[in-house]
């Protein structure tokens, strides 16, 4: 129902008016920023990426989260002008952390921006999120940034809020990345507003294994199986790579990709948790919903973060953003 040309602006306008107490849309710079300046100077956090993955990233701007987010066009990374404006807005003299998902466009555009901003005297630190475990470690450069991005934004956001310096916040963010893995599957292809039809056809009884966001195909396609088998697929690589075993404490994020009913997501969440329990691991915190999406894709990304005391404490800190809120 959207007008293809103004879809992102229309969304941002609606987001702003729906969460006026928390965020602000700067139409000129095309960024979403926190409405109120933090109580005291802190490390700034920014992120950005193609639109169509809502609520990422604009939905995570606010107290305890990002200071600003740069939304690109649909599935297109933001441009340096946006990133630089966001950097300036987020900079309170204690430096700015760029949370970059490992997509070529983001890495390059945030990279170019960082160079320029450093020359302008702003301290910049970068982390590249690559929790996607659908490619073997030998192809680590293909590993996309998926659900861990949200956990990085939440947890590093809390670290910044409590007063950590840039190096400390960066260390926390890196720790979240190191300890996180994701895996995704999809049952259809999304339709981008400009193309107007699904990017590819998917037979009704098949699904794509190892998908990301942005509507791309997974690395392979499989015949439809039960929710139990899907849970196995989602769990397999992450649990091997993270060494999930007896005693592991997991923050679990089950995100629909845009058109997956909540009843299906919770079903998967339940099965995955009981499979974790079989390994002796515990899902100590769970998020189920649409947290990182891909327009109207019917699919799911499961993200596992092996949390220690420090990460859990930061995760539990208050947050007040359009898409995540607790303790406040």
């Amino acid at each position, binding site marked *: 129902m959207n007008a293809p040309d103004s879809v992102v602006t229309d969304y941002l306008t609606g987001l702003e008016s729906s969460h006026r107490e928390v965020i602000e849309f700067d139409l000129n710079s095309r960024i979403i920023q926190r409405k109120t300046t933090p109580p005291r100077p802190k490390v700034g956090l920014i992120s950005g990426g*193609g639109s169509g993955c809502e609520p990422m990233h604009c939905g995570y701007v606010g107290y305890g989260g990002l200071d600003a987010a740069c939304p*690109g*066009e*649909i*599935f*297109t*990374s*933001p*441009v*340096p*002008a946006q990133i630089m404006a966001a950097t300036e807005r987020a900079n309170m003299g204690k430096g700015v952390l760029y949370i970059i998902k490992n*997509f*070529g*466009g983001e890495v*390059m*555009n945030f*990279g*170019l921006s960082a160079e320029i901003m450093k020359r302008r005297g702003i301290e910049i630190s970068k982390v590249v999120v690559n929790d996607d475990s659908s490619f073997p470690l030998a192809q680590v*450069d*293909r590993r*996309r940034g998926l659900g861990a991005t949200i956990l990085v934004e939440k947890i590093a956001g809390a670290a910044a809020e409590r007063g950590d310096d840039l190096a400390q916040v960066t260390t926390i963010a890196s720790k979240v990345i190191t300890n996180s893995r994701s895996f995704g599957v999809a049952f259809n292809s999304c339709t*981008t507003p*400009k*193309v107007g039809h699904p*990017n*590819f056809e998917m037979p009704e009884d098949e699904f794509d294994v*190892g*998908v*990301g966001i*942005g*509507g*791309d*195909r*997974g*690395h*392979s396609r499989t015949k439809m199986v039960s929710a139990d088998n899907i849970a196995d697929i989602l769990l397999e690589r992450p649990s091997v790579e993270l060494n999930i075993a007896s005693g592991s404490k997991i923050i679990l994020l089950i995100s629909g990709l845009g058109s997956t009913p909540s009843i299906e997501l919770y079903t998967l969440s339940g099965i995955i948790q009981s499979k974790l329990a079989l390994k002796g691991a515990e899902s100590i915190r769970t998020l189920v919903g649409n947290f990182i999406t891909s327009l109207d894709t019917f699919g799911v990304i499961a993200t596992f973060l092996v949390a220690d005391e420090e990460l859990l404490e930061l995760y539990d800190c208050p947050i007040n953003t359009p898409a995540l809120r607790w303790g406040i």
Partner: protein
Amino acid sequence: MKTSAILSPLIAQNWLEEFSKIVISLEDHLNELDAAVGDGEHGSNLSNGAKALLQGFPNFKSRTLGEFFEDAGMTIINSVGGASGALYGTLFLRLSDVTSNYQEADLTLISQAFDSSLSGIMELGRVKPGDKTLVDALEPAVTSMRASVKNSENLLTAMIKAHYAAELGCSSTANMEARKGRGSYQGDRSIGHIDPGATSMAALFGALSNTISNYFPH
């Protein structure tokens, strides 16, 4: 030859006007190509850049060729987005670096400048020929130009050959498996589809040879 063929700021602007118009008319086609291997918006991304260029030209402060390419590069970088925005932007910023001390450029300088664009892109994109990207159109064009310099061909001949090389390179991407960019996520299922970035890159050289031929007909 009526006059010694060169690339002046004016001719360069005509080139990019031509390119912009082509890109806008190819928007849907490039989106469709990108839908098959990537995320379906390469045409829209470049179109945004094309519109920004067409709107921006009247306000460009640039006088020299180097300044013109810098303005063009920055305009593209800040309007296209995605991988292609940074990469196309880098292409022009590198053209700018190499031509910065010149009012206009002859084939030798043009060839050197594109040489530098190619390395800039390969560096930024961590990409090499064969990865099924725009490099697979750019690199053959650059190689062709180098040969033309060696053979002292005139600019128009060189540009026609470069364009042809780019088109060939673009077609060759159909048989490649994507190793960079969004196409790389689907493994060998990208085989059989032409790379959208290589297609637009070939169009860039088409616009160049066409513009040169308008100014310096055989």
